[in-house]
């Protein structure tokens, strides 16, 4: 997959009587390459342009500029060829025919995705087994749980044995066991030679699965590399986590101003707030952070190695 300076602009309209249009740049010139058999991750906050990028690559949106080729086929000029070889799975419980059984959904999509008639029965059987829906496939989808729907989505996306699979937040809303099974399935597909482009909000998922990652913010790539490179390149030091009961926001500026501190973020944890302080390599900031938080009621204090999530938070929050 070769993506070169791809762009997408939308026209957003406002008002009823005096209608005004403004252009929104959802994707501002992304460039990246994905090798055959690679699992490539696109990470970024909501609205960063991940889904728009995927939709351009699977030919559902025309780019406003730049170019992209999938398996050597141009996504604009050779859309039909691209569609033959790519699969698309998105998260959530939409995208299925509720009044049909899981089996009928797969039969219908097998026909739409031109799976040869003589192979359909066997292929559908294999996929129903792969995603663990055997015994439930004749029930109507409206009675399926979210996890079952997601598994049916995956089966649908794999019907025509796509060489490239696009997974857009596939594990959203499914339970931890289901998410783990999904990761195993994706890893197995990559072992079998499928190229995968994955977007996710779960950093551990990206860390576990992806060979390489591009982090997008506001329609631009802000970093690209292996998970290890991203962690090393952005957060070389250590991370201090302090549980604060009270108003942590009021002292954040003091913590940010400490020598050696590179970034600070706060996560809500029930009644407590978790202050996450990232520091430069070699800087020992634990005692000065605790001093800055002296007026607060503190809970657990821990130091740890930086994770991909730390790298991600720092990348997307850079000015």
């Amino acid at each position: 997959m070769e993506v070169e300076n791809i762009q997408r602009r939308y026209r957003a309209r406002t008002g009823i009587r005096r209608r005004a249009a403004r252009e929104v740049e959802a994707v501002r010139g992304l460039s990246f390459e994905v090798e055959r058999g690679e699992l490539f991750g696109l990470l970024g906050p909501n609205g960063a342009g991940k889904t728009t990028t995927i939709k351009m690559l699977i030919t559902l949106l025309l780019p406003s500029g730049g170019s992209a080729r999938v398996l050597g086929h141009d996504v604009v000029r050779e859309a039909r060829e691209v569609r033959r070889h790519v699969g698309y799975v998105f998260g959530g419980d939409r995208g299925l025919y509720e009044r049909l059984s899981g089996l009928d959904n797969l039969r219908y999509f097998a026909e739409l995705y031109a799976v040869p008639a003589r192979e359909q029965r066997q292929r559908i059987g294999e996929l129903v087994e792969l995603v663990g829906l055997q015994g439930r496939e004749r029930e109507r989808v409206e009675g399926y749980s979210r996890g079952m729907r997601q598994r049916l989505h995956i089966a649908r996306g794999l019907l025509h044995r796509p060489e490239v699979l696009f997974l857009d937040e596939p594990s959203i809303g499914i339970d931890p066991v289901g998410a783990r099974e999904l990761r195993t399935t994706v890893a197995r597909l990559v072992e079998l030679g499928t190229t995968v482009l994955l977007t996710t909000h779960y950093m551990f998922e990206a860390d576990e699965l992806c060979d390489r990652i591009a982090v997008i913010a506001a329609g631009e790539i802000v970093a690209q590399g292996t998970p290890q490179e991203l962690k090393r390149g952005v957060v070389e030091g250590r991370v201090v986590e302090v549980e604060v009961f009270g108003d942590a926001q009021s002292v954040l500026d003091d913590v940010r101003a400490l020598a050696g501190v590179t970034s600070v973020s706060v996560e809500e944890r029930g009644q407590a707030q978790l202050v996450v302080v990232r520091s430069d390599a070699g800087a020992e900031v634990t005692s000065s952070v605790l001093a800055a938080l002296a007026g607060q009621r503190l809970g657990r204090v821990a130091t740890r190695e930086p994770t991909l999530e730390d790298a991600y938070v720092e990348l997307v929050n850079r000015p």
Partner: protein
Amino acid sequence: MSVLRLLGLGWWLQLKMRSRSAFDGALAIVYPLFFATSVFLIYRQSASSTALVAAAVGASVMGVWSAVATTASTSLQNERRQGTLELLVGAPRPFALIVVPITLSMATIGLYSLVATLVWGRLVFGIEVSFVHPLTFALACVVTALGVAVMGFVLAVSAVRYRSAWALGSALELPIWLTCGFLVPLSILPDWVRPVSWLVPVTWGVSAIKAAALGGQPWPGIAMCLGVAAGYALLGTLLARRMVDSARTHATLALT
């Protein structure tokens, strides 16, 4: 063969979906009977039994058209809402071949209203349609339903690009009743309406059904209905390509 399989399976599964809602089913059963009752009560005042039979035939086709007109233009909006429209467009099969079975399934349900109207007329109002050419009558009904399905196809593909195109079907429902001679003979309408009505396949279908029921030459109507429907199919196929490209440019395939 593979195209026929796609059309056949698509038609069957769409029909399955549409027939599984008890509420929709009840409406589909009752709705045509209201049309029929209104028409029969109006035409009962006429002394001519031929006019009453012609009204029965017109009312029955009215039911087929109404079953398709509004649902065809809302069907792709529903696909958009349930997140399946992108999957249909993203499939390697030509989009037109995916939409045709959807409107064919609607016309199939519409055929019920055709039969129900005639049975209702017979049982409640004592209108006997003697069918001069019964087999040709059945063929004319199927061809007319096909013509309606193809018109629905043209309406449906417009909704790929325009999210509010669902209103098109409702807007055209009554004008088609009038311009195709469902209820009143075209001869009493202004002259300029006639050439307009020739461009609608159902006009020819209704004319063939009436000829088969009352005596006359149904074959020219059947041939014209098929010919004009083929023109609509071609128009719909070209339109589908343009609409899909435009939807890809303007990002209207999804709700977000």
